């Protein structure tokens, strides 16, 4: 059985609990053993580093050291988490910097040795679980659905940090997953752009114009729903969708699914268990289309 040190991230344990429950449900079906890092801290999301980059690196060194101590690969379920973890891992390849940082971990007797390779569930599905295994688990192919990918910045940029050269399949991981699950991909310009979430509290109008225009573009290209590996994007695209519609003056009605929810649907897991009833934008039409 494949085992992972699992960092759910704050949002999956806060405003997007459906991401957490659907991840656990899918992992169980796939026989993945997730050991949750209960003592780990928020990645800082690039916001702690706005004022305190050093502090953010210490917090992430600690999380990565915990995964090393368990001798397990680190799994994230948030584009932002994986991006921030990988940036920290990149900076901490510098031995001198690592020594300086490690000195804050010494009181608990842990040390970051520099070996972590944080990955997102989406990559793990394609790289570890594999297409054949996923295929064998599909009970209800999503043939009726046209799905727009929405990546979230940190799982597609900067490419160097994400090791795209060594893993070219990471470039279009969402399209691949959509394809394996039997649905049709709707491509649109906004799919790799920013949802605007980071500036929601500092510049709401700009933030919602971004979210709204991507939603509008995907909707007008015929998407039935979007799927995202980022719960922060989910907050801006789902919870803020009614406000975004007002800001751009269009009518929007586009359900936003988390990656494991989509997996779960194809694997025949009960929508209630996947938290699909807990969205702001109603998923009922989508489920009707699938006949569930």
């Amino acid at each position, binding site marked *: 059985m494949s085992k992972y040190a699992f960092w759910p991230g704050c949002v999956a344990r806060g405003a997007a609990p459906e991401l957490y429950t659907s991840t656990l449900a899918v992992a169980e079906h796939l026989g993945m053993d997730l050991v949750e890092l209960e003592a780990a801290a928020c990645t800082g999301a690039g916001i702690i580093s*706005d004022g305190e980059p050093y*502090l953010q690196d210490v917090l992430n060194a600690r999380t990565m050291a915990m995964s090393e101590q368990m001798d397990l690969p680190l799994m994230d379920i948030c584009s932002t988490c994986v991006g921030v973890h990988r940036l920290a891992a990149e900076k901490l390849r510098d031995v001198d910097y690592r020594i300086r940082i490690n000195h804050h971990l010494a009181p608990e007797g842990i040390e970051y040795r520099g070996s972590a390779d944080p990955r997102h569930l989406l990559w793990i599905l394609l790289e570890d679980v594999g297409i054949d295994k996923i295929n064998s688990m599909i009970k209800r192919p999503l043939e009726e659905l046209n799905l727009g990918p929405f990546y979230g910045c940190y799982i597609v*940029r900067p490419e160097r940090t994400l090791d795209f050269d060594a893993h070219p399949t990471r470039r279009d991981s969402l399209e691949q997953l959509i394809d394996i699950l039997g649905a049709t991909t709707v491509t649109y310009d906004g799919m790799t752009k920013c949802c605007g979430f*980071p500036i929601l509290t500092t*510049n709401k109008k700009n933030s919602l114009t971004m979210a709204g225009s991507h939603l509008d573009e995907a909707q007008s290209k015929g998407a039935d729903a979007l799927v995202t590996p980022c719960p922060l994007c989910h907050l801006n695209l789902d919870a803020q969708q009614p406000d975004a519609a007002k800001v751009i003056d269009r009518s929007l009605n586009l359900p936003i699914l988390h990656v494991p929810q989509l997996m779960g649907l194809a694997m025949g897991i009960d929508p209630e268990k996947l938290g699909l009833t807990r969205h702001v934008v109603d998923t009922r039409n989508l489920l009707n289309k699938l006949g569930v």
Partner: protein
Amino acid sequence: MAQQEFIIQRYNPDTDESYEESFDVDVQPGQTLLDSLNQIKWEQDGTLSFRMSCRHAICGSCAMKVNGQSMLTCQTQVDAAVERGDPVRIGPMGNQNVVKDLVVDVTKFLQQFERAETWLEPYEDQEPPEKEYRQKVEEFDHWSHASTCIHCGACYSDCTVAAVDENFLGPAALAKAYRFVMDSRDSKREERLEYLSETQGGIWDCTRCYMCVQACPKDVLPMDAIMELRTLAIEAGHTNNHGARHHKGFAGGVRKRGRLDEMMLPVQSVGIGRLLTGQISAHKEMMDYTPGAIRLLKSRKLLTIAQRHGASAEGREQIQRIFDEVESEKHHHDVDADAFGAEFETAIGGH
């Protein structure tokens, strides 16, 4: 020699017509996109318009959108472009008005530099040094990335905020402003930091989307420069703005619970102090967030404090210790920095 199809976005200002046109070009191994555009212009359609000059990634004229991403066409080989999409789609840069075909009006882009006053403001009241102004090697190494900009506009063209806000200073001008904030010969460091954190469209409006870092052909790392400006501005005490408050509220929440507290963020960004002292503008801003909160409540997303998951008790203790340790270390550093600053001032003054 192989045939390669290019789909070029065209615009004719005389008829106000936009259309796509396909061209097949015989390409040699190693040939660049700009070579191919020249081939089209010389051999197939002399009316095709685009900017170019140096052909060596120096002048910054030839940035265009290639398969959706902005880059220098003289620096990009056809093979590399094909890997990202075949046929290769070439269009004008984004976020600027198109003049003709692949030529955009760069006025707005250039005005951002003027607005940010990205030129050296020397110390007027000090005698210039006898020989030259000295800059420490380690210091220059730290910010030299931001000095290599060729003003090609690729970053601005892909910037997600520039796409929705004309007022945003944009990645290149902000990176250049950073370059002068860091330059020991410049006398306006404090004024710059204040302006960049308080002006509309300044450092706090960036979404941290990495588009500019990905697009830049010169590794200027504009976003990294903006992030460092934020840290410098907070350190310099420019904290009476949404961005700095957001940082402080976020970090404070993580210190307490080990995790982000989304429910408290709007309150903190608007400013607890402003709310408590009854500032009307603060209450108006708060009302702005209320519809979102009510919707979350309806979809059972807004959790009670007890349901919101913090780090384990043991984890929380360790996280708090780390926060406090780093904080107290910073104060030590401040003392060091002051001493260093004094030494530095004399060094650059040349006396």
